């Protein structure tokens, strides 16, 4: 039937090439992940690494969708019907994350009674033990007077 001929591309060679690319990209991502462990928190280098990892993630997504899912070999118009609606994610992500960030900022700045777990120091090695009493704990703490200032 005519179907198999219409789909140009998708040969074994291409599959191997894409597999290789995906593997390499993943290894780079992992390497970056390991490298990032040594970086100080909230640093520019850490942020830059995270952004690089996200770019690599998008590259992987491109190869999976384009070659494994064969989208690159479909008719251009069909590619557009898939890719264009994905642009909605731009505003979806921007608005949500922006508002999330703003919510944290507003609470930290203007809510004198706001108190998050993140203000409570836990002894490093005690992590496991602290877990057990966890469920009841925040409630007690909230009941107690809140005086710890933020920042």
């Amino acid at each position, binding site marked *: *039937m005519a*179907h*198999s001929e*219409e*789909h140009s591309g*998708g040969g*074994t060679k291409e*599959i191997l090439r894409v*597999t290789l690319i*995906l*593997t390499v990209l*993943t290894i780079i991502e*992992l390497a*970056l*992940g*390991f490298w*990032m*462990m040594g970086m100080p*928190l909230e640093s520019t280098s850490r942020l830059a690494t995270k952004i690089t*990892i*996200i770019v690599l*993630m998008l590259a*992987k*997504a491109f190869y*999976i*969708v384009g*070659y*494994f*899912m064969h989208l690159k070999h*479909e*008719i251009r*118009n*069909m590619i557009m019907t*898939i890719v264009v*609606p*994905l642009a909605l*994610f731009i505003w979806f*992500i921007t608005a*949500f*994350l922006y508002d*999330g*960030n703003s*919510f*944290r900022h507003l*609470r*930290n700045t203007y809510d004198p009674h706001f108190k*998050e*777990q*993140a203000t*409570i*120091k*836990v002894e*490093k090695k005690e*992590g*496991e033990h*602290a*877990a*057990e009493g*966890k*469920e009841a704990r925040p409630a007690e703490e909230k009941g107690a007077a809140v005086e710890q200032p933020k920042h």
Partner: protein
Amino acid sequence: MSSTTTATASKMWGGGKSPFNVEYGKLMMWYFLMSDAFTFGAFLISYGTIRFSTNGWPDPNEVFRSYPFASEGVHAPLVFVSIMTFILIISSVTMVLAVKAGHEMDKKGVVRNLILTILGGLAFLSCQAWEWNHLFHEGAWWGRNPFINHDGTASSTNFTNFFFTITGFHGFHVFSGVIINIVMLTMTLMDKFEKRGHYLMIEKAGLYWHFVDLVWVFVFTCFYLI
């Protein structure tokens, strides 16, 4: 939207045939996956939103640092999850090969590669089961978070809440993908597709399977790497 300026475009869009030269089932599968992308997208964006609105967050390298058969105090971040990632990528490759074999009407190739894909899926699910079990025994579950933030402060339970919900939802997709692939395998063995004259169903199952792989790329990055 469809500017019918060029001759080829107007021929494709003139009616009486598919403008994309694909059967309706494939089209529906693609748009279903679009829809599902918004489901996962919404989950991951919610995760991001909560993370942005929380003051502290655990270090994934402190949390996901074990692998099976390792001794207790082992500290090997990213190792196990990289294995899981590779399993899924390889199963995606075998799925591509199955689809390709289908196009060539090569029943044997389809069967072989489908079996490999199913095994890959099961391997991934087993890994996930082990990891969940391990975390559970460390005290992590929905509503329970034994891990501490980067800076040594107590962490919000939303770290584990989102982790279990999103990887669980992804695992559910892997599971249904395995079921779909088993159905495809049975149908191939029963010569259903040979009689039909084409293996287009495999292609649709393949799309779904790659999508599952695709989602993992995002989940992997969001939870384990950054």
